């Protein structure tokens, strides 16, 4: 039986899992919506991995994404890494001489600068989510096209309209205005892509030196309109890797492999059928009123987090 490495990326919008025996050959890749329920998403993802591969022996598990703490406790992960590192590792595996990674996901966007294979600088969006996947989703839904059609439609544009990209709310009112003026849908979509790229370069890029090769990854990289807008704005042909939407999970699995473990602390595929639950309560210990999260398997408390003083999180051995 093959020994596989698992990578799990629990993001705000999507939960992705990948499995490989050697990183050159991806055995399984699962892309799921999180729908605000990371526990169910992880279980569903693992179920699909089992369906695809059978109950393979797991040599290592890496987790990343904003839900990494929960995923780590739940699965018994060997490596828990932040998204920036995971994405950088994945990108430099796919394109070894990569100097810039543009990653745009559901709720956040990142820019990672690498030189000679080492991360030298990075940035994440801070105050604005205008350029991220959720906003594109929302606009596609408003116009009544599927997100899959968005890119191809934008590519047909002859004369992209100018849309203010500083703020999602203003971008939307600008779009509506242009629509009512009678501009074609293609031109508006392409204009929106250009606005979002400008927003990204101003808010996240902020004067950082963007050099080729540029790898563009994350769910939004599926949008051909966004790729074209980046190509034009940077004057560089961006590279979209084949696994663009699961690069975080891929990076996490690579890190698990790099850790060269004797044996994995993975808690087994049985956890698909176990009952996990989480609930929160406000600690009344002081005026901080920390929102403590309690994570349980059946009746047993696996972990608590969210307290500032450590009163609860130290109470359970993790």
């Amino acid at each position, binding site marked *: 039986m093959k020994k596989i490495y698992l990578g799990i990326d629990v993001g705000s919008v999507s939960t992705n899992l990948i499995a490989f025996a050697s990183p050159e050959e991806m055995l399984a890749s699962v892309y799921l919506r999180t729908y605000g329920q990371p526990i169910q998403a992880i279980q569903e993802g693992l179920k699909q991995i089992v369906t695809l591969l059978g109950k393979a022996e797991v040599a290592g598990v890496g987790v990343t994404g*904003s839900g990494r703490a929960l995923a780590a406790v739940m699965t018994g992960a060997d490596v828990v*890494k*932040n*998204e*920036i*590192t995971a994405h950088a590792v994945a990108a430099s595996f796919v394109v070894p001489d990569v100097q810039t990674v543009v990653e745009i996901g559901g709720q956040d966007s990142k820019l990672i600068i690498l030189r*000679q294979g*080492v*991360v*030298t*600088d*990075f940035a*994440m969006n*801070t105050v604005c989510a205008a350029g991220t996947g959720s906003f594109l989703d929302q606009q596609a839904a408003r116009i009544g096209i599927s997100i899959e059609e968005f890119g191809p439609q934008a590519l047909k544009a002859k004369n992209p309209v100018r849309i203010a990209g500083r703020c999602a709310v203003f971008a939307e009112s600008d779009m509506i205005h242009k629509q009512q003026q009678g501009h074609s849908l293609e031109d508006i979509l392409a204009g929106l892509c250009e606005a979002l790229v400008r927003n990204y370069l101003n808010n996240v890029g902020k*004067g950082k030196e963007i050099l080729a090769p540029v790898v563009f990854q994350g769910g939004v990289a599926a949008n051909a309109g966004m790729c074209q807008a980046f190509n034009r704005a940077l004057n560089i042909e961006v590279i979209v890797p084949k696994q663009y939407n699961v690069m975080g999970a891929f990076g996490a699995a690579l890190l698990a492999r790099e850790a060269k473990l004797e044996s994995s602390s993975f808690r087994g595929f049985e956890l698909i059928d176990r009952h996990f639950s989480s609930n929160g309560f406000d600690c009344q210990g*002081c*005026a*901080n*009123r*920390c929102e403590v999260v309690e994570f349980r398997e059946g009746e047993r408390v696996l972990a608590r987090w969210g307290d*500032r003083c*450590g009163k609860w999180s*130290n109470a359970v051995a993790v």
Partner: protein
Amino acid sequence: MKVTFPHMGNVWVILKTFLAGMGLEVIVPPPCTRRTLEIGVRQAPESACLPLKVNLGNFLEAKSLGADTIVMAGGVGPCRIGYYAQIQREILQDMGCDYEMIVLEPPDVHLSEVWDKLKYLKRRPWRKVLQGFILAWYKACAVDALEQEVMALRPLEAKPGLVDALYRKAILQIDAAGSKRQLRKIVRETVAEMVALPRQREYPILRIGVVGEIYTVLEPMVNLNLEKRLGAMGVEVVRKLFISRWINDNLFKGILPLPSHHAEKLAPPFLNHFVGGHGWESVGDTVAFARQGLDGVIQLAPLTCMPEIVAHSVMPAVQQATGLPVMTIYLDEQTGEAGLQTRLEAFFDMLQWQKGKRTG
């Protein structure tokens, strides 16, 4: 007269001693918590920077404990702190919250401005006031001596949290202490206990300098316990901002032989003059940290802080000239800690990666 003052890290220990030495009844506001922030934010103008809002929260919480007079710091430089006291006074007045506000700030015209205010406050002979001041000074030194130990030992301890527990206990002892001798004993014994704690490593994995605006650097509630987070990752935090050094630099004009910032020597050619707040010092300290061979620098500032924005804008040049990575973090009302944690972890990985490349 029951006096209170705003919180900034452990400064309460020092101010309490000083004001009590003047013969005043002192009401220390409850420690800064999310509640403090919430009630401050509710009353303050949205575009004001964070310290003003948290201060307001402190005043309102102290009011419910019976305080009727505020001793507030001011300033005459380009930083907005010069306006704080005035705005806060207006806000409190509008709310119908009855407070007298006394603003201690560097004299604009004549030294007598400060003198008159102190004379107005004091209830005991000057000799007693001076004694209180000297005791407060020794407390500042004791607190900072411990703080430095804590920063060096956090990354080494086997079970994160034990050093901090001893530290918290010692701060309360320092608060209660009444003589230099007692203070020495507290520091000596606490350090011995901290050093004896079980360790998981003998050297920190990385050493990161912290620079920036003094309030965000010194108040853990506002910087979301940045130093504790870094310590738990195995990072030794190094900084040049300490309250005792601040007193020495600003009140004693640097006559005591304590380490100082020397921005005037280090910050040029990146930044050639004072820009308000600690902007100049942030740049100078970053250069100093590069020379000390630290692995990276984190700059902290409240969102919209003008002096630090100026410093931020020259940081890329400092970074390029010294090769020292700098990450700037703006702090505001948000209490979501995941974003900060992710950035810290990513910065940590990046520095470790670079370090590995240099040595390996």
